[in-house]
């Protein structure tokens, strides 16, 4: 393949894939939701986490096959994933557009200690049940947060302006709904701003130095013997004159012009270097001898280090579990409240140890009840979604979060199954209720309760008072959301481990035919 053609192919496919990601993650149509769920499943980070989700044999097998395909393909083809499938890599490629007149890139030292140390820290802490480090470094989860916490708010602002303008001309355009979470917005804005700056200045340095998925794929491209047929960018050291042109365009900083070497474990196959060499020393083809890292004697040393760093991550296993015990900001009863996790997540501990914080569920939740947490789960659960009943409630028939979750943190539930899951229990604070304090009719809570866990019973003087039945409660938070009392007279206490809710029958009984002889008036 001729060099420019490779670049065009890579840029074209990358643009197309990024376009799909934008459509899927920004759109709210059913097609966009399904596509987002599909694309997210084809991400390596969530696929690896899903191996531990105990979701079921078929799902496990799918995750195994997909992870294996990606990792094995990296053995033979290198980090193609980073230029074709990773939305966070693709968005950095987009950031690098029209950069011609800027300073040339420079070789970034391989830094194996830092990179593999970070990877092992991420893996070790993840195995120990703490995804904090994974969530702070994993590219797909950054992409998800970038869209939901930064791009969508900006889009909503534009949409508001647009609808207001259309309204002037008497045309109705449907406004987008959005609950902005300021801290998460600011963090994402700062992180994205920083990323934009370093990317423009140094290239895809995040991919080259930080990204654990990239390091893992790069590692795969190195651990197997050089006798295997491996393809990649080949630098012919005999032809190379160390002019530095390729190094200057290399967006991951993986070409060492002086050392006449391409670090295969960081090359994302962007193809920028192909065709730029005046001596024709660079081409895409079979790699005959394994390339070396800085001061590295190859695979054996690599494996040795891997073992050594594994020991370093041992302390992560003792990451204090007490950090999971978060406290909700607005507990109406004034006590500590366990945050409620979405149905299908089975409980706080399981959820926080599997959720990669990509915010896809938050993005696609139709009611806005799923919101990014800050410290509700403690530091280790930073940004992981929480059921926020001040911004919405969980609809009885909706199962969308489980459908889109790529890491298995929220398992998919059928609507029938979901009705049997109790994620929290209702608590009624009688003394605050409008019926008691004002002596007027209310029942906003019972009206919205889908299961009759909150009902109304006669309370004298033509009034009814809410009565709760926790056998029926699913913890959806409808009552808490609807309660008109400032500070809430009814609320949901989250369950650390989800329980069973009774579905009392009949549910949706058919209407009884009544033959009225005469009008009743």
């Amino acid at each position, binding site marked *: 393949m001729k060099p420019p053609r490779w670049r065009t192919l890579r840029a074209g496919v990358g643009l197309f894939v990024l376009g799909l990601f934008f459509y899927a993650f920004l759109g709210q149509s059913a097609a966009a939701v399904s596509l987002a769920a599909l694309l997210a499943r084809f991400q390596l980070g969530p696929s690896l986490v899903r191996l531990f989700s105990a979701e079921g044999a078929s799902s496990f097998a799918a995750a195994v096959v997909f992870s294996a395909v990606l990792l094995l393909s990296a053995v033979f083809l290198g980090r193609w994933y980073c230029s074709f499938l990773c939305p966070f890599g693709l968005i950095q490629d987009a950031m690098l557009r029209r950069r011609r007149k800027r300073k040339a890139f420079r070789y970034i030292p391989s830094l194996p200690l830092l990179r593999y140390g970070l990877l092992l820290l991420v893996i070790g802490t993840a195995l120990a049940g703490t995804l904090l480090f994974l969530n702070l470094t994993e590219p797909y989860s950054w992409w998800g947060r970038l869209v939901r916490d930064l791009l969508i708010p900006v889009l909503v602002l534009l949409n508001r302006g647009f609808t207001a303008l259309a309204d*002037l001309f008497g045309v109705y355009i449907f406004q987008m709904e959005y609950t902005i979470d300021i801290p998460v917005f600011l963090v994402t804005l700062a992180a994205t701003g920083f990323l934009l700056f370093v990317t423009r200045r140094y290239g895809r340095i995040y991919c080259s130095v930080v990204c654990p998925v990239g390091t893992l794929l790069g590692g795969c491209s190195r651990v197997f013997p050089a006798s295997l047929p491996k393809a990649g960018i080949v630098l012919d050291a005999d032809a190379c004159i160390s002019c530095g042109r390729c190094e200057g365009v290399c967006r991951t900083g993986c070409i060492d012009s002086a050392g006449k070497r391409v670090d295969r474990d960081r090359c994302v196959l962007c193809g920028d270097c192909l065709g730029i060499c005046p001596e024709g020393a660079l081409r895409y083809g079979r790699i005959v001898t394994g390339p070396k890292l800085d001061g590295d004697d190859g695979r054996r040393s690599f494996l040795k280090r891997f073992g050594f760093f594994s020991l370093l991550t041992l302390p992560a296993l003792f990451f204090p579990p007490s950090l999971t015990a978060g406290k909700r900001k607005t507990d109406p009863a004034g006590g500590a409240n366990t945050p409620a996790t979405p149905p299908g997540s089975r409980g706080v501990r399981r959820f926080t140890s599997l959720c990669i914080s990509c915010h896809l569920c938050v993005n696609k939740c139709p009611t806005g009840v799923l919101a990014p947490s800050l410290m509700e789960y403690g530091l280790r659960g930073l940004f992981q979604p929480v059921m926020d009943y001040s911004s919405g409630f969980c*609809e009885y028939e909706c199962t969308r979060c489980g459908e889109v979750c790529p890491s298995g943190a929220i398992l998919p539930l059928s609507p029938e199954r979901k009705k049997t899951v109790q994620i929290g229990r209702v608590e009624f604070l009688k003394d605050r209720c409008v019926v008691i304090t004002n002596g007027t*009719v209310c029942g906003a809570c019972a009206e919205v309760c*889908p299961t009759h866990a909150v*009902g109304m019973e006669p309370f004298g003087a033509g009034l009814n008072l809410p009565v709760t039945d926790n056998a029926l409660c699913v913890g959806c938070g409808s009552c808490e959301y609807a309660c*008109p009392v400032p500070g809430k007279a009814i609320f949901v206490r989250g369950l650390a481990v989800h329980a069973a809710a009774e579905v009392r029958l009949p*549910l949706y009984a058919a209407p009884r*035919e009544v033959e009225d002889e005469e*009008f009743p*008036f």
Partner: protein
Amino acid sequence: MDRREFLKRFASCGVAAAAAVTLRPLRPLMADDRVGPPDLVALMGGSPQDMFDAGIAALGGMRAFVRPGQVVAVKPNISWASAPERGATTHPLLVRRICEHCLEAGARRVYVFDNTIHSWETCYSETGVEAAVKAVGASMAPAHTAGYYQAAAVPGSRLLRNIQVHELVLEADVLINVPVLKHHGSTRMTGALKNLMGVVWDRGMYHRSGLHRCIAEFPLLRKPTLNVVDAHTVMISGGPQGTSYRTSLELRKMQIISRDIVAADAAASRVLGLEPEDIGHIGIAADAGLGSAALDSLAIERIRL
């Protein structure tokens, strides 16, 4: 000056002349000195759409309510993401037929909307109303963000001094109120008066300040031009959402149509086996002069299909 008003003034220059030609003052339909249409039409035994055809004919046809070029707002109860046969929402075929009649009468635009309780997109689609309405060339209007609501003070109301009301209620030439009749856990019944709770932004305020009185006083701001109570599939208990084991439905195949919102609800309460006096907001609305709850003194036309 709010944005809608701005639009109005802006556009009024252009359309004023045309409007002056096409719009004539509403003909007095309720003149005492002649045999006019009935106060209330009650129907039984047909499909929602057939009953409406017969009922609106008995009231002189939709042309008695909608003039050519007018904007019509139709307010069904589509608050729940619930299939039509579950009786929690107004039947889509009824809404559709009402829209058809309005368009046939020459309405310029027909908007259908509700400030839903479940997420608006699922409500609009699951109830079947969106598809039904769009099929006949009417539009679904948004009501899911505060931006579509304007501040209003309800004249003569104690509690509704400052509420946010959907702009279509304030601006449409014709307002057609199309509730579904149901049992309600706190107000005992939800019908025509209660349905208008879905045109205000902050429901919680109603609950905080006195639910019955707020519901009853809202029409002091604007009385619907026409009220069509869908009592085809009636949720007789376990309302208003109808997802609990206490929910029971009855196929009553009835419909009540009236200009008088209080009369419509008074008649509807009997369908649920209650008396108008049992429902707090019916009495308050009658006392406020919004209509008559005295069923015996109303001219009721009863039609069996």
